[in-house]
C-alpha cells in the first residue's frame, strides 16, 4: 500500500520493479567482475602473461664419467644426427612424386582422365623415383659406413616404431570418436579406424637414421642432401667414449712358460670399462619419467630436468644407476612477445662421476685376458676335464685398494665396445656360455671355494669356536669310518690317498692348514662355528648386502638355502670350505682379503669417489688369528707345499707368482658349479654347453718390505683348478699393479 502511495501509477510501479530487477542483475555482474579483477587478479594476470612468453629449452650436457686419474671415460660431444623424411623411409615419397610428375605431364588433361588412366601415368613415372630412392639408400649406406642390411634394419625399426605409435594413437582417437558419436546419437555407434586414421606427426616428420656423426660424415651428408631427397642434417649430441678402444702394452715374458714370448706386445683392448660405465639410449620410456618423478618429487611440468622425446637416458651401468646425477637440467630462454625482453635461465650441466677405477690398470689386466694370449683359453696343462683344450674361458678380476677399500679395477674378460652394442648384439646378449652382458667381477656370484678358509679361521677364533693353538688332525675325511664323504681334497686316488697329517707328520696348525688348504681342518672349524655364525661372517663381509657408491646394481651374493629352509650342520661343514649355500663375487672376495690385510676392519667397496669417507666397521676378529691367516696365505704362495705356489707344465714346475720386489700372500680355490644348458626342442634333453668347477685365486700384494696394499681376486668360470688357471691371471694383475707404480708407496 505504501508503494502505491509513493508511485500512484501502477504502470510506473511496474516499470520501477523492472528497473530494480535490472539494477540487481547489473550489480550481480559487477560483483562477479569485481571478484575476478580484485581477488583473482594476481593469479589470472600471471596466467595471461604466461602466454606472452615464448620460450625455448637450452640443452644441457650430461655429466662426464672419469677414471681415478681424471681420464674421460664417457662424455657428451657435439655431433650431428642424420634424419630422413618418414615418407622417404617408407618409400611413399616415390609414389607421391610419381603422381605429381604424372599430373604435371598431363597438364589440363588430368581432370578429364579416368582413374585407370591416371594410375597408368603414375605407374609409368614411378620407376624414375624408385630408382632415385634406391640411389639415396646406396649413397646413405656408403657415406654412413653401414651395410645395406644394417640400413634396412634401421629403416624397418623406425617404420615399426612409428606404426606402433600410430596404431596406439588411432585406437585412442577411435574410442574417443565412438564415445562422442554414441553420446550425440544416444546409442552405441561403432567408430572404425578409417574414421580417425589421419597421419600422425611422426608420419610427417624426419626420423634419425644415424646418430652422433662427426663433422666429416656430416659434411658428406650435406653434399649428399643437395642431390638426394628427404635428408636432414641436425645438430645433436653424441655420448663419446674416448677410451672405448685402446692399445695396451703387456709384457709377455711374465706369462706361463708355454705362453711366454719375449718382450712387450701391444694389444688392442675393446670396451675395457663398457660394462661398468654402461650405455645410454635416445628413447624415453614411461618408466624413466616415473622414476625421475619419484626421485625428485617434482611433477614433470615443474622439473627442468624432465624428459623430452629423444633425450639421452642412461640405459645400463653407471649411466643408468646415476642417471639423476649425470642428467643435468635444461636451461630456458624466455622472450616476451610484447616487449622482446629476453629472460634466460642457464642450463645446469650434469655432475661428473669420478671413479676409483684406474683405466690403465683395467686395460692392462684386460689385455692379459685376451684369448689370443692364452690365459683365458683351456690349455692341456690345466687339467680341465670338462672343457676342451682351446676353448675360451670367461674370467673376472677385482682389484681393491686395502687402505681405502676402493675398487681399482673390475675386469671381465668378455667385453664389447659401445658400437658393438648395436653391431654385435647377438654375441653380447645371446651367447649363453661366455655371456658378455654379465660382468664377472661384480655381476655374477659364485661359491667361494677354498679361498674363504683364512676368513673362516679369523671368524672362528674371533667367535671363540676355535683356539688358535689347537691343531687338527687330517685323516683324509672328517667322519671316522666314513671315507666317502667330507673328504679332504688331497685324499684321492690320484694323490695316493694322502692326508695332510701324513704330509706334515701330525695334526695341522692354522698356517699349514691354510697353506695346504686342508679341508678337514676347515670342516672342523665350520662345524664348530655353525651355520648361523658362518652366515653372520659372510654378512659382515658384505655378502647379501649392498656395496658402496657406483655398485648399486652389483650382485649382492647369497647366503642360505635356495628353498628357504633353515641351514643345517651339514651346511656349516661345507660352508667352512666355501661350499654349500653361499655365493659371492670376485669383488666380495678381494674386499674380504683386504679386510684381513687391514686387521679385521671392513670397508664397503665402492667405485665412485664422491669425496665422502668410506663406510667401515670392525669385524671383531682375533688379531693373532688374522696374523696366522696371513702367515698361512704367505706360505701358500711362497712355499713349495702351498697350493698357490706353482703349477706344473709339461716342461716342469713354474711358480705362479713371480713379481720381483712384491710381497705376496694368497689362496687358490675351486668352486663347484652347475652346468650351463642350451636350448632344446620340447620333450628332449637340453644339451650341456659347459660344466665343471670355477677356479679362484685371491692374493694380497704389497711392497716387499711393507704392508699388503692391494687385494686381487680372480675367478675363471669352468676353469677347474684355481692355481693353474686363475693364478697366472692374478699374477698378471699384480704385474700390472707394479708396472703402474702401485707398490712404490704412492697410490696413483
Amino acid at each position, binding site marked *: 500500500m505504501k508503494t*502505491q502511495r509513493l508511485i500512484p*501509477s*501502477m*504502470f*510506473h*510501479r*511496474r*516499470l520501477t*520493479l*523492472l*528497473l530494480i530487477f*535490472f*539494477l540487481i*542483475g*547489473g550489480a*550481480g*555482474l*559487477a560483483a*562477479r*567482475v*569485481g571478484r*575476478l*579483477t*580484485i581477488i*583473482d*587478479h594476481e*593469479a*589470472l*594476470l600471471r*596466467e*595471461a*602473461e604466461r*602466454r*606472452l612468453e615464448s620460450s625455448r629449452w637450452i640443452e644441457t650436457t650430461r655429466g662426464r664419467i672419469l677414471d681415478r686419474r681424471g681420464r674421460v671415460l664417457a662424455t657428451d660431444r657435439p655431433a650431428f644426427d642424420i634424419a630422413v623424411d618418414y615418407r622417404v623411409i617408407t618409400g611413399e615419397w616415390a609414389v607421391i612424386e610419381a603422381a605429381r610428375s604424372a599430373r604435371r605431364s598431363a597438364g589440363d588433361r588430368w581432370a578429364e582422365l579416368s582413374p585407370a588412366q591416371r594410375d597408368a601415368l603414375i605407374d609409368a613415372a614411378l620407376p624414375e623415383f624408385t630408382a632415385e630412392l634406391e640411389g639415396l639408400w646406396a649413397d646413405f649406406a656408403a657415406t654412413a659406413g653401414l651395410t645395406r642390411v644394417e640400413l634396412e634394419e634401421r629403416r624397418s625399426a623406425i617404420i615399426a616404431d612409428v606404426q606402433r605409435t600410430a596404431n596406439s594413437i588411432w585406437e585412442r582417437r577411435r574410442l574417443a570418436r565412438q564415445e*562422442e558419436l554414441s*553420446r*550425440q546419437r544416444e546409442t552405441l555407434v561403432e567408430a572404425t579406424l578409417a574414421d580417425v586414421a589421419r597421419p600422425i606427426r611422426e608420419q610427417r616428420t624426419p626420423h634419425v637414421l644415424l646418430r652422433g656423426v662427426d663433422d666429416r660424415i656430416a659434411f658428406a651428408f650435406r653434399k649428399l642432401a643437395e642431390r638426394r631427397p628427404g635428408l636432414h642434417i641436425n645438430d645433436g649430441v653424441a655420448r663419446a667414449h674416448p677410451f672405448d678402444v685402446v692399445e695396451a702394452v703387456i709384457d709377455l715374458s711374465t706369462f706361463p712358460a708355454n705362453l711366454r714370448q719375449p718382450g712387450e706386445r701391444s694389444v688392442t683392448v675393446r670396451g675395457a670399462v663398457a660394462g661398468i660405465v654402461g650405455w645410454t639410449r635416445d628413447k624415453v620410456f614411461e618408466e624413466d619419467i616415473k622414476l625421475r618423478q619419484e626421485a625428485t618429487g617434482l611433477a614433470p611440468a615443474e622439473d627442468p630436468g624432465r624428459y623430452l622425446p629423444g633425450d639421452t637416458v642412461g640405459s645400463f651401468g653407471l649411466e643408468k644407476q646415476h642417471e639423476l646425477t649425470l642428467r643435468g637440467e635444461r636451461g630456458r630462454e624466455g622472450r616476451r*612477445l*610484447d616487449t622482446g625482453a629476453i629472460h634466460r635461465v642457464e642450463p645446469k650441466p650434469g655432475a661428473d662421476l669420478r671413479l676409483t677405477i684406474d683405466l690403465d690398470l683395467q686395460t692392462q689386466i684386460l689385455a692379459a685376458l685376451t684369448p689370443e694370449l692364452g690365459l683365458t683359453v683351456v690349455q692341456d696343462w690345466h687339467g680341465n676335464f670338462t672343457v676342451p683344450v682351446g676353448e675360451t674361458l670367461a674370467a673376472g678380476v677385482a682389484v681393491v685398494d686395502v687402505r681405502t677399500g676402493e675398487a681399482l679395477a673390475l675386469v671381465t674378460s668378455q667385453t664389447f665396445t659401445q658400437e658393438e652394442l648395436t653391431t654385435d648384439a647377438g654375441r653380447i646378449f645371446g651367447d649363453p656360455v661366455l655371456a658378455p652382458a654379465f660382468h664377472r667381477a661384480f655381476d655374477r656370484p659364485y661359491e667361494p671355494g677354498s679361498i674363504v678358509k683364512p676368513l673362516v679361521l679369523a671368524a672362528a677364533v674371533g667367535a671363540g669356536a676355535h683356539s688358535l693353538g689347537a691343531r687338527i688332525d687330517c685323516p683324509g675325511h672328517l667322519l671316522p669310518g666314513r671315507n666317502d664323504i667330507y673328504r679332504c681334497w688331497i685324499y684321492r686316488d690320484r694323490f695316493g690317498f694322502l692326508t695332510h697329517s701324513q704330509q706334515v707328520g701330525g695334526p695341522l696348525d692354522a698356517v699349514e692348514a691354510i697353506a695346504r688348504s686342508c679341508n678337514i681342518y676347515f670342516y672342523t672349524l665350520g662345524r664348530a662355528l655353525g651355520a648361523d655364525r658362518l652366515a653372520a661372517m659372510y654378512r659382515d663381509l658384505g655378502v647379501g648386502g649392498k656395496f658402496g657408491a657406483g655398485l648399486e646394481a652389483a650382485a649382492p651374493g647369497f647366503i642360505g638355502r635356495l628353498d628357504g629352509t633353515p641351514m643345517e650342520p651339514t651346511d656349516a661343514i661345507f660352508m667352512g670350505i666355501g661350499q654349500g649355500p653361499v655365493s659371492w663375487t670376485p669383488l666380495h672376495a678381494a674386499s674380504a682379503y683386504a679386510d684381513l690385510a687391514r686387521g679385521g676392519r671392513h670397508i664397503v667397496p665402492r667405485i665412485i669417489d664422491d669425496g665422502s669417507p668410506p663406510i667401515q666397521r670392525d669385524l671383531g676378529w682375533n688379531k693373532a688369528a688374522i696374523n696366522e691367516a696371513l702367515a698361512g696365505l704367505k706360505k701358500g704362495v711362497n712355499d713349495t707345499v702351498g697350493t698357490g705356489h706353482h703349477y706344473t707344465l709339461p716342461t716342469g714346475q713354474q711358480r705362479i707368482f713371480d713379481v720381483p720386489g712384491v710381497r705376496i700372500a694368497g689362496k687358490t680355490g675351486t668352486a663347484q658349479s652347475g652346468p650351463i644348458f642350451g636350448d632344446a626342442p620340447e620333450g628332449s634333453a637340453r644339451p650341456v654347453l659347459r660344466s665343471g668347477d670355477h677356479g679362484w685365486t685371491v692374493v694380497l700384494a704389497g711392497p716387499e718390505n711393507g704392508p699388503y696394499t692391494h687385494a686381487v681376486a680372480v675367478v675363471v668360470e669352468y676353469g677347474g683348478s684355481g692355481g693353474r688357471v686363475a693364478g697366472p691371471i692374478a699374477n698378471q694383475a699384480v704385474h700390472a699393479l707394479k708396472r703402474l707404480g702401485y707398490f712404490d708407496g704412492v697410490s696413483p
Partner: protein
Amino acid sequence: MNHGAPGVIRWNDARLHETTRASRTPNVLWRHPAWICLGASLGLTTLGVVSINLTAGTNAVGVGSYALKQLIFLPVGLLAASIAAAPHYKWVGRMTPALVAATIAMLLLVLVPLVPEWIVKPRNGARRWISLGVADFQPSEIAKIVYVLILARYLRFRKNYRRLRGLAPPLALTFVPMALIVIEPDLGTALLFIPTFFAVLVAAGAKLRHMALLVLAAAMLAPAMYPVLRPHQRDRVHAMWNQIRGDRRNADSINYQGFQAITLIGAGGVVGQGADKSRAIIDFNNLPEDHNDMIFAVIVNRFGLVGAIATISLYLAWIAGAMLVAGGCKDPFGRLVVVGLAAILGTQAFINIAMTVGLAPITGMTLPFVSYGGSSLVVAYAMVGLVWNVAMRRPAYLARKSFEFGDDD
C-alpha cells in the same frame, strides 16, 4: 459551428480541439529521455570500436579492419534508427501483422533444406543467415523486434492476460518464433524471448502471482528439459558448472573459451592494463571471438573493473532511459514496445556479460552496440530508433493512461 450543449464534449469537439492543439504545438518533441538511450548507445559503440581495435593484434598498424568496419556500420545503424523513428509508431503497429508474416517467412526460409546455399548459407551446422550479397543477416535479429511489436499490439487493449488462462495467447505468440529459432539452432537468441515476455506482461499489469507461478513452473520444468538439450549444449552446461567450481579439467577443451575470457577479465584488475600490454595479452591469449561475443572480456582487460562498471552502467542507463520514455508515454502500444525493447536489449547484454564472466553457459550471442557485427549493430540502433519514435511523439492530449489497474497482484 454548432458546439452542442455546454459542458458536453462531442466527438467532433474533441477532434477540433486536437486539431487546434496540433496547429499550436509541434507533434514531434525534441526534449525527451530517449536521448539517454542514444547517448548510452553511442558510448557503448565507442567502447566497442576501441575494444575491437584492441583485438587486431600486436602487429596491426593504425585502426584494425574490424574496428574500421564497425565505424562504417555506425552510420548505417544511425540510418536504421532514423528509419525506425520516422513513421509514427502507430503506423508501425498497423504494419506489424505484415512484418510478422514476413519474419516468419524468413525464419521458415532458413530452415528449408532445399533453399540454395547462395541464399541460406549454413555455418557450423546452423542455418541462421540469409545472404544479401554484400552482407548476411539473421532473420532472428529482426524477429526480436517484430516479436516485441506483435506482443505489444496484442496486449495493448486487452485485460484477459490478468487471468491465468489469458496468458496462453501471449505465450503462444512467444513460442512460435522461439521454436523456429531453436530449430536453426540458435538457443541463445531464442532464450531472449522469455524474459521479454515476462517484462512486457509485468509492465502491462499482469498479476505478479501469475508471473511467479509461471517462473516456478519453468523452474520445475527446467531439469526435465535437460535431456532435450543437444550433447554440445549439455557439455557447455557441465563446463560452466566446472568453471564456477574452479575445476580446470575442461580448460583446454570445451571450456577453453570460458577460461580464456575469465583470464583476460581477471588480468585487467581494477583499472585495466595499458593499451599496448592489453593488446599483447589479448593477442597472445587467443580468446576465440574476442572481437565479437567475448568483447566484454577485452573491455575489462583494457579498462578493468572500472570499464566493466561503466559498460554495465551504460546498459542500465539505456534501460532507464527507455523506461522513462515508456513512463512518459500514454499509448499502450508505445509503452509496451519500449518496455519490450528495453527488456530484450537488456537481457541480451546481461546474458552476454554473464556468459563472459562464467556465470552462464556460452551461447553465440553478441553484446549489443559493442560486439563487432553489422546486423547486430543495425538492429540495436533500430531499437534505439523505435524508442525515439515513441519518445518524440506527443501523447494524445486526452488519452487515457493505459495499464492502470487497481491491484498489483
